[in-house]
């Protein structure tokens, strides 16, 4: 076959099974777009490359299949960086292809030239600067293999324009890149793990994104049931265990239900599955699960012992490890521990004030959940609304909940929802967002309108950077600064201006009916819900503090302590180089 580098890329992407690519064209990627012109691949024109990156992430997170996004050189590449970094921290398989100036011009500060390779080293699993069309024959499949193997992650392929235009004859096509076989654990590991589990009187499973990436959700549930072991989840592990399951404790960490953190405090064996002991989950790491031995299973060897030294660390695919454990574990009731867990849960339930009021945070999340049903996919942005959803939405299956965990990127929610809707056209997608977050990628409402995606944006509008305001209230003596938006935009009017249906619950006489209608709309739709600026997320663990010290809604004493404690908890306490 006679083609050029750009044609080769498109053909290789088709062979990978790629059907949809979000992106924005520019000078250095025009040969690629010329090749896409004759392809069956559907290009989704985003309105900002960061939007394109998060649309691709939404596709990948909702399906587990690697997704591709395109950007041109220079600003196209720099605009993609945040979405790529986000994929790195949350281990999402993403292949970002960028145009680069012709090789003859590289290093001359040419128009729209930037060192994309150098910029993306720290935020990718791997990256390439392609120097010939023939190289693409192994680079493209290898990029997909790397993005999906073991712990998934983003891969960048930077392709100079002359390489895109270079003529090439292809005689034989390479096999599409697929994930390497899952890493098994050794029999010694299995024996050790089973011994720890058999020995434990008060075990807890803590599950994370690795469980979802490994497709091991059912195995987690079966192990928990067989051993009568309660299960807590990190933010990204939500959905891997059904929220209504009697053994499920909900989210752990900074905004966990008090009972969940207290149960972890008392456990004598913590089984960490596909987790990385993130500080938002552990609180002060040295005081996390102080009485527990730790069994840590992760496919990434460098996570074992990075934060917490495990009693036994097993480098393996979580699914493979759990299958091996299950073969050797006998059913075991743990009546004393079950009773203690039940006691703690009864005494320290998550308080959800306003749970019956559609116009207050918990009530809104509950109402949307009830109306949207189990089939819905939920995305969020970052902030208070994200935590309210994480606490209160009853997730029932993996890949139902898409949120920016590690990087905590405001602006994630809307484009990720568009991506999820493109990848799963038979499902409704709800994007919970805040006014601060929505403004960071609001231009993607145009993409949503153009693609007519089934995305319902639920905007919790408190005219503040709510979680910043909350930290200023609790830890900075109430000295509010730069957390209030004085000019409050009319979001419903803005959405309509983009061609998106919009409703404002501030003026609705029957809010529940409006919400129900919005969740039935065939195309994109936005519902703005005014939220009191004073509404905070509780409980809250002071950043850097141990998880047992939770600040509650009605605890002025601990508040005062916390705000006086800037010495230990101040945000300005940076690591000294």
């Amino acid at each position, binding site marked *: 076959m006679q083609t050029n580098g750009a044609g080769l890329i498109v053909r290789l992407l088709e062979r990978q099974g790629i059907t949809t690519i979000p992106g924005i064209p520019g000078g250095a990627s025009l040969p690629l777009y010329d090749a896409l012109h004759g392809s069956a691949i559907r290009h989704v024109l985003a309105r900002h490359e960061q939007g394109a990156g998060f649309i691709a992430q939404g596709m990948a997170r909702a399906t587990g299949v690697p997704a591709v996004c395109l950007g041109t050189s220079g600003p196209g590449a720099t605009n993609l960086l945040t979405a790529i970094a986000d994929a790195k921290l949350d281990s999402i398989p993403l292949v970002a292809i960028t145009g680069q100036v012709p090789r003859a011009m590289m290093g001359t500060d040419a128009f729209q030239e930037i060192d994309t390779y150098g910029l993306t080293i720290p935020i990718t699993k*791997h990256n390439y600067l392609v120097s010939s069309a023939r190289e693409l024959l192994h680079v493209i499949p290898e990029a997909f293999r790397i993005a999906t193997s073991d712990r998934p992650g983003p891969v960048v392929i930077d392709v100079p324009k002359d390489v895109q235009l270079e003529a090439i004859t292809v005689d034989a096509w390479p096999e599409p890149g697929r994930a390497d076989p899952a890493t098994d654990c050794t029999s010694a590991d299995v024996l050790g793990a089973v011994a720890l589990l058999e020995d434990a009187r008060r075990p807890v499973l803590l599950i994370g994104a690795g469980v979802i990436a490994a497709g091991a959700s059912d195995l987690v549930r079966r192990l928990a049931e067989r051993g009568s072991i309660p299960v807590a989840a990190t933010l990204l592990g939500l959905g891997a265990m059904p929220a209504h399951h009697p053994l499920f404790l909900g989210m752990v960490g900074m905004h966990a239900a008090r009972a969940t953190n207290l149960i972890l405090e008392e456990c004598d064996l913590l089984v960490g599955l596909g987790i990385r002991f993130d500080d938002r989950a552990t609180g*002060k790491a040295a005081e996390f699960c102080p009485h527990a031995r730790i069994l840590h299973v992760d496919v990434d060897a460098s996570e074992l012992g*990075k934060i917490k030294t495990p009693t036994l660390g097993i480098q393996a695919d979580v699914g493979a490890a759990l299958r091996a454990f299950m073969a050797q574990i006998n059913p075991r009731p743990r009546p004393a521990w079950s009773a203690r867990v039940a006691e703690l849960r009864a005494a320290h339930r998550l308080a959800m004030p306003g749970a019956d009021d559609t116009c207050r945070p918990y009530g809104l999340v509950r109402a949307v959940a009830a109306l949207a049903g189990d089939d819905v996919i939920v995305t969020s942005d970052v902030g208070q609304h994200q935590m309210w959803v994480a606490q209160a939405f009853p997730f029932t299956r993996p890949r139902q909940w898409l949120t920016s965990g590690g990087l905590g990127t405001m602006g994630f929610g809307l484009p990720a929802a568009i991506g999820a809707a493109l990848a799963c056209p038979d499902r409704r997608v709800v994007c919970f967002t805040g006014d601060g977050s929505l403004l960071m990628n609001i231009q993607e409402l145009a993409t949503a309108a153009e693609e007519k995606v089934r995305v319902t944006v639920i905007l919790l509008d408190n005219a503040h950077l709510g979680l910043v305001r909350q930290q200023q209230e609790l830890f900075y003596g109430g000295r509010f600064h730069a957390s209030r938006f004085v000019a409050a935009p009319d979001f419903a009017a803005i959405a309509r201006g983009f061609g998106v249906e919009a409703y404002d619950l501030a003026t609705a006489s029957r809010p529940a009916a409006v919400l129900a209608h919005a969740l039935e709309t065939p195309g994109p739709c936005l519902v703005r819900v005014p939220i009191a600026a004073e509404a905070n997320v509780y409980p809250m663990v002071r950043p850097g503090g141990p998880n047992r010290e939770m600040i509650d809604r009605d605890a002025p004493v601990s508040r005062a302590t916390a705000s006086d404690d800037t010495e*230990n908890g101040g*945000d300005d306490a940076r690591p000294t180089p």
Partner: protein
Amino acid sequence: MPDQRRDDRCSAETRHPSVVLRLVVRNHPGVMSHVCGLFHRRLFNVDGIACLPTADASRSAVLLLVREDARLEQVVRQLAKLVDVLEIRREAAGDDAFGVVAVALGCPAPGSAQWVSFGVTGEARHQVEGYGDPKNRLGTI
């Protein structure tokens, strides 16, 4: 007691002697950015680097002079994740591997009386379990 005094004057690097890692990497212009950037990003210490192409020019060999401390295992595991790093081996010769380089550069040989290890960057991170401890001002994001 004299022993104790001497111990107090000991630098961190004396307590954590140096070790040399030998890597085989894919030979291309960006590979040293991957390796060096990793040390910088993870606050690992590296005292010396030497790199030359192997007989097979598609590969390079890299020598890294690093401190042997509690974090060495983590350094090796992070290096192993780099796609361009094909092989990691601990050099038996230890500090001696850099002796010739030191002469060529006119620098003190590692382990010699004049040798000063690269600062104490990342010292606070040695106690990883102390992450979040107010003493080291970490973990308060």
